[in-house]
């Protein structure tokens, strides 16, 4: 109940291709998040699964059954839209029961299922209101309730949190995660927000320009990004990148400064003199005593309360470090900064792929 197979799926609008042959297997009960910048094709892919967009090439199967030519109503899916798409002329109760009523479900069963869903979502006191009488967060819940009562094979969420304010967004995010643990059904969730992707997903699918850059659990995406794009998309602030040249023992930056490579983290398959992009996350830039240290001028501090971000110059380039506030360097000084060389990444300068087999 609820697996989705996407095989070599292509989508074009006229002569303009927007999805270039995507392959993905989604297991039953899995929470999969499609993430990527605007125009990467994540919503288009979701709408193709829903049946709201035609499939130009390849096939999509739900529970092993190819659904390419089935209308949305025959696919047994439910969808939560970005702006909720509640029926304005119907009450909350009628909105939630709409799909069941169309399918000829007996009235007492509709009533029971709407009641159950409303209790789970804590909207049972709103059942007789019209959508316009609800706040944004309440509408969001009704939209989810409308999906839940149907007990579909697959839930599709199209950026459902982007119209909520920041506080409500994190609250509803938690509830969606709880809901998934409760319902144990397959969820495909589209977002452009990497925090939502990291916190919600069993597996993240990072899309860029109509193809998949990387698929994996959040910690793999975070700790072993397959491309520079994925590395730069996750984390807040995202990974720092510095163009560099590889020597036998060191990584040398454009301004001549270099970092020693520990023996156990020597990149494999890269000859000395390779031009690479060196990547390091802000939390691996610290003032701890380590083997690899650089003297860097501090240009700016951003105190966040729990941590302080410091902007540090490396020649013409700049990187960000995350420091414990008491240990943060002062702006204007040149500080001795440690780079945790157990955690660095290398990327190809031309096509951005991770190189040197540095997983973990």
């Amino acid at each position, binding site marked *: 109940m609820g697996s989705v197979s996407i095989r070599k799926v292509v989508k074009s609008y006229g002569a303009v291709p927007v999805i270039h042959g995507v392959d993905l297997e989604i297991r039953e009960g899995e929470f999969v998040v499609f993430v990527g910048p605007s125009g990467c094709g994540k919503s288009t892919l979701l709408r193709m699964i829903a049946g709201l967009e035609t499939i130009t090439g390849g096939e999509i199967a739900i529970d092993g059954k190819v659904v390419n030519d089935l209308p949305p109503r025959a696919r047994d899916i439910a969808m939560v*839209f970005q702006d909720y798409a509640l029926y304005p002329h119907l009450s909350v109760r009628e909105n939630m029961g709409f799909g069941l009523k169309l399918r000829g479900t007996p009235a007492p069963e509709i009533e029971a299922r709407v009641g159950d869903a409303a209790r789970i979502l804590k909207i049972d006191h709103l059942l007789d209101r019209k959508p316009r009488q609800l706040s944004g967060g309440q509408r969001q819940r009704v939209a989810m309730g409308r999906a839940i009562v149907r007990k579909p094979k697959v839930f599709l969420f199209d950026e459902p949190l982007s119209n909520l304010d920041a506080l409500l967004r994190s609250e509803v995010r938690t509830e969606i995660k709880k809901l998934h643990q409760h319902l144990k059904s397959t969820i495909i969730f589209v977002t452009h927000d990497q925090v939502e992707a990291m916190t919600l997903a069993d597996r993240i699918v990072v899309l860029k320009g109509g193809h998949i850059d990387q698929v994996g659990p959040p910690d793999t995406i975070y700790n072993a990004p397959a491309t520079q794009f994925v590395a730069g998309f996750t984390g807040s602030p995202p990974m720092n990148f510095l163009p560099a040249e590889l020597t036998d023992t060191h990584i040398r930056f454009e301004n001549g400064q270099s970092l020693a490579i520990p023996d156990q983290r020597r990149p494999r398959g890269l000859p000395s003199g390779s031009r690479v992009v060196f990547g390091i996350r802000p939390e691996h830039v610290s003032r701890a005593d380590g083997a690899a240290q650089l003297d860097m001028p501090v240009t700016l501090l951003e105190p966040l309360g729990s941590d302080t971000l410091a902007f540090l110059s490396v020649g013409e380039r700049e990187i960000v470090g995350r420091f414990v506030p008491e240990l943060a360097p002062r702006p204007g000084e040149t500080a001795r900064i440690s780079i945790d060389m157990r955690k660095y990444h290398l990327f190809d300068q031309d096509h951005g792929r991770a190189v040197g087999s540095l997983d973990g």
Partner: protein
Amino acid sequence: MSSKSPRRSIGDLSEGTLGLLMLLPAILLLCLIVVYPVGRLMYISLFDWRMSLPNAVPAFVGLEHYIYALTDDPKFWDAVYNTVLITIITVPGALVVGLGLALVANLPFKHRWPTRLALLLPWALPLVFAGLIFRWFFNYDYGLVNDILQRLGFGKVLWGTDPNLAFFTICLVIIWKSSSFMAMILLAGLQTIPRNLYEAAKVDGATSWQCFWKITLPMLIPSMVVALVFRTITAIQTFDIPYAMTGGGPGGTTETLAMYIHKTTIDFLDFGYGSALAMLMFLVSLGATTIYLRIIQGDKE
């Protein structure tokens, strides 16, 4: 504040006074073109004023004209009957046809302007022209309709002589003429329905037919009420098309209230009685409008 500057500026006025001041031009205009003529009409309706009599002097008769019209004038009731019948046939008829046209015009054609232009043309045509065109269409000897009937092997039909057929053709033309107006209002309404409601309904399991009944129609009700209000008021005042097509005949069977008023006032120069009849029509229009407005307001609560 104002105590320091002796000159009072317009900004010192209270919001209510300022608002009234700004509304004054509109109020004056309305008085000139609505309140005065209606008041004058009501005034004249209380007098016996027949220009057909030599040296006619208006004589005050009170409500006599109204009493006569309502109790003793079969021609008045015939005209009311015809008008009501035209209204209850052509208003829903135009709503249904107009809805169909609006749905067609709203289809995602690559080039929408031909359908929209076709939609506009009947509306842009003057009423009398429409009446004359169809009078020729339905002419016994050289009309297009009888020509087609004959080519198909049927006999010629006396469209203008049979009271029922004459009434039927008039209703047909009114529906043709007014459905484009309906369609334009409904098309505007259709375009305000968000597309994602249909997507949500499709995912929820709706067929296209169910989408129409469960989404399109309920969401279109406000536009339909607006269209019905305007259309009902003009239907009550139906004049041009029957005037051009049948002139009220045969034997007054297609004479509407507006035509009867016109005949009384302009042809027979009975200003007093004509004004009383016009007042009665005004009251009926007012009543219809009030009912619709009640419906709209009731719907909002």
